[in-house]
């Protein structure tokens, strides 16, 4: 039986990206510097793809009641998440389905109405 997860909205600010760069070691300047981001064809500073995936994983782990219960996780980064000076909003909704012995959560992750993660899937431990 399918279980729908309550949709949530996550705010992302440039300070979050600075904190995430320090925590993850990913200091790619496209996540900090508008000029560098524009030089490679981006609209300006964008969130780390892994930042958005971390929010999506957090959404699943908070729903399931804790960390350490995911057996597999994956997604495509289909569009960048632009983070202007006043921040961005990432909206996440999901469905959990029983598939054999496993529970599989699929998510819809959007920013400004565009899908930013494609085919997000988390398989939960039995």
């Amino acid at each position: 039986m399918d279980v729908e997860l309550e949709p949530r909205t996550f705010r992302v600010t440039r300070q979050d990206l600075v904190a995430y760069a320090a925590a993850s070691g990913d200091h790619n300047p496209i996540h900090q510097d508008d000029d560098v981001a524009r030089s490679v064809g981006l609209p300006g500073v964008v969130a780390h793809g892994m930042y958005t995936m971390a929010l999506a994983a957090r959404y699943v782990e908070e729903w399931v009641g804790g960390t350490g219960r995911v057996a597999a996780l994956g997604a495509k980064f289909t569009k960048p998440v632009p983070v202007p000076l006043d921040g961005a909003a990432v909206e996440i909704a999901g469905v959990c389905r029983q598939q054999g012995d496993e529970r599989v959560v699929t998510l819809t992750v959007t920013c400004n109405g565009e899908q930013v993660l494609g085919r997000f899937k988390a398989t939960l431990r039995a």
Partner: protein
Amino acid sequence: MPIDQSLVGRSFPPTRPYAVSREKIQQFVTATGGEYDDGPAPATFPIVVAFQAMNDFLEAEQVDLFRIVHGEQRFSYRRAIEPGDVLRATLTVASLRQIGGADIVGTSSLITDESGAEVCTGTATIVHRGES
């Protein structure tokens, strides 16, 4: 400059040992807006080690990080990561193709603990846009 096709199948040396602590997990959780409960690390935490392997690979191949965009990421976990784990990642180049002046690089990073046992594997697709 395109990335050298002969890299496919090559493994790079393991990253230096990374000691997982409550403080490191806390920093990661806080940066992603969560609250740490002293439990296992969140599901995307192993990117910290996988990214180190990716950085070493890019440096070895003299690829600029700012020309890299992440296309896809997957993890499969043998077990949860806990404070006290000491992890290393070994990156292998799985595939390489060129599309419209961009290199599409598929990598697989095996993350092991101090005993050498697999903790998880991260597979990533990265897109490298050369200088135009």
